[in-house]
């Protein structure tokens, strides 16, 4: 790639003080490259199924609340019933998924993203 890239066309949405940024051609080249493809795969193959899973689990909870009153009213201990346990379970899974995603992002996504970013900003 040329190190003496011509000044990129200014993006219409940016303020005049916006810094020089890589050209569209450079972005297309990176987007089609193997390295970025792997970053995209690592992100999507984790985030998309997990999103579907927690939405399904939430909807299951909503449907159980609606149509399985007897089951939800079953006492587990004292006055604590299945409905409350499952409700608190939604809290627990939310905290758990947030932690899992953040760990995945820190370990698997951030290093890959950083390599691409530093190279592109260095070239621009």
């Amino acid at each position, binding site marked *: 790639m040329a190190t003496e890239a011509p000044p990129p066309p200014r993006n219409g949405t940016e303020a005049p003080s916006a810094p020089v940024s890589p050209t569209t051609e450079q972005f297309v080249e*990176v987007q089609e490259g193997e390295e970025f493809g792997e970053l995209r795969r690592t992100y999507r193959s984790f985030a998309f199924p997990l999103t579907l899973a927690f939405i399904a689990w939430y909807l299951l909870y909503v449907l159980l609340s609606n149509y399985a009153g007897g089951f939800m009213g079953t006492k587990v201990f004292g006055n604590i019933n299945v409905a409350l346990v499952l409700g608190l379970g939604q809290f627990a899974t939310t905290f758990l998924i947030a932690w899992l995603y953040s760990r995945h992002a820190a370990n698997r996504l951030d290093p890959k*993203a950083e390599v691409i970013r530093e190279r592109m900003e260095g070239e621009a």
Partner: protein
Amino acid sequence: MSTPVLLAAGNATSEHRPLIIALFGAFVVATLVITVWAGRQTRSAADFYAGGGQFTGFQNGLAISGDYMSAASFLGISGAIALYGYDGFLYSIGFLVAWLVALLLVAEPLRNSGRFTMGDVLAYRMRQRPVRTAAGTSTIVVSIFYLLAQMAGAGVLVSLLLGITSDGGKVAIVALVGVLMIVYVTIGGMKGTTWVQMVKAVLLIAGTLLITFLILLKFDFNLSQLLGAAATNSGKGDAFLEPGLKYGVSALSKLDFISLGIALVLGTAGLPHILIRFYTVPTAKAARKSVNWAIGIIGAFYLMTIVLGFGAAALLSGDTIKASNKAGNTAAPLTALEVGGGAGSTGGAILLAVISAVAFATILAVVAGLTLASSSSFAHDIYANVIKRGKATEKEEMRAARWSTVLIGIVSIALGALARDLNVAGLVALAFAVAASANLPTILYSLFWKRFTTQGALWSIYGGLISSVVLVLFSPVVSGAPTSMFKGVDFHWFPLENPGLVSIPLGFLLGWLGSLFSKEEPDAGKYAELEVKSLTGVGVAAAVKH
């Protein structure tokens, strides 16, 4: 113990009104000092819109919590639990799980590809003027609905706590809230608003912790015992602890509950006043950290509302709560009075005053965030990029933002004064449904779907916006039910109170169809820019530093 307690509550408020007013006053003075201080550091458009983009993840997480936990969460959810038991708790689960959509799909890409508004990302790959107009319209509609709910809530709450019952007095309260929010936003911009939201979040968590502790103390820190007392005292027995008291009445109300559930879980990541908060941190990593903090803080808060709501049900009678406010909105302050030593005691009066001041702070911080979101979008999307075609100077743009803040403030004072008797919960649920139908599909398609086009964006935004608003207009929220906004007329034909079940899938479908039938090819180069930027953050750090 119904009427005497309530009367005593009234007496306590009137006896200790100077204390309540002093606490309100202290909060207002403190936040104004913060605002003026922040205003002195607000020089550029990046300062005004994004607070300079240099807040830490923790600070922003706190501010997001302050922006999100509205009076509807604090007063509404604890009140709903107090009256309907378990069904009240269902709201808070949707409100919390929704944050995962923001964390996994929206926060980081948004931070990396936009600068000031939701429209920055929606219009990135598209023809600027039509898409920015659509994004600005939808931002302003969602924010105004949300704002109206807060203003109406403020009027009801503050007039009740200060014992103001005259219409003139209620209008004066709404006007006071409106003027304060105009001052916060025009002078302090995003920096001032952020600090106000942080202070509010700390106050809200501290106040809720205190009441939760005092309630648990009465029940030996035994949740089962608390739930048992609530079930018995509610007169409904075990049914009070099971789903169904509010939404399980008929097949239709069950369907309505599904609709509400979907709107809650998909709405959050499309709320403009939440989305612009991600621009106040320097990197995607900090945006992620702020959502994690927000999930922790908001989750802890909703866990405490369980104790607060069931505590209210255990300690007060349903009649007492309903006599004070039909929707249960004053259950939390009344419980504070009770655990502080009961009516007539100094401890009770002080706690009541503290919780009331916290509720007032909550409303002010949320309305400031909403006003900022709508005026930013007007100035940046509509004025600078549509009217001035991207040729406005930074000075002109900031002037437009300040003037539109004043304008939006005046409009919401006027509407809030008119809407002071409207159903608050309906307005908030509507804001979530509109956000999920009009904004979320376009955000997700823009970020993740290569073939998405300008026409797809327009169909999705306008289709989701119009269908959700029209369905609500012809729903029982507006007419034809005892709780409707307009009584005595009936022009409803849509059976559900929440339009989400229909309008959210429609918004997604229209975005897909609009792109499919588009004559225009999607701009592949722009998508490459957006996708690479959104996942890697190329150019972000530099853009913030100027």
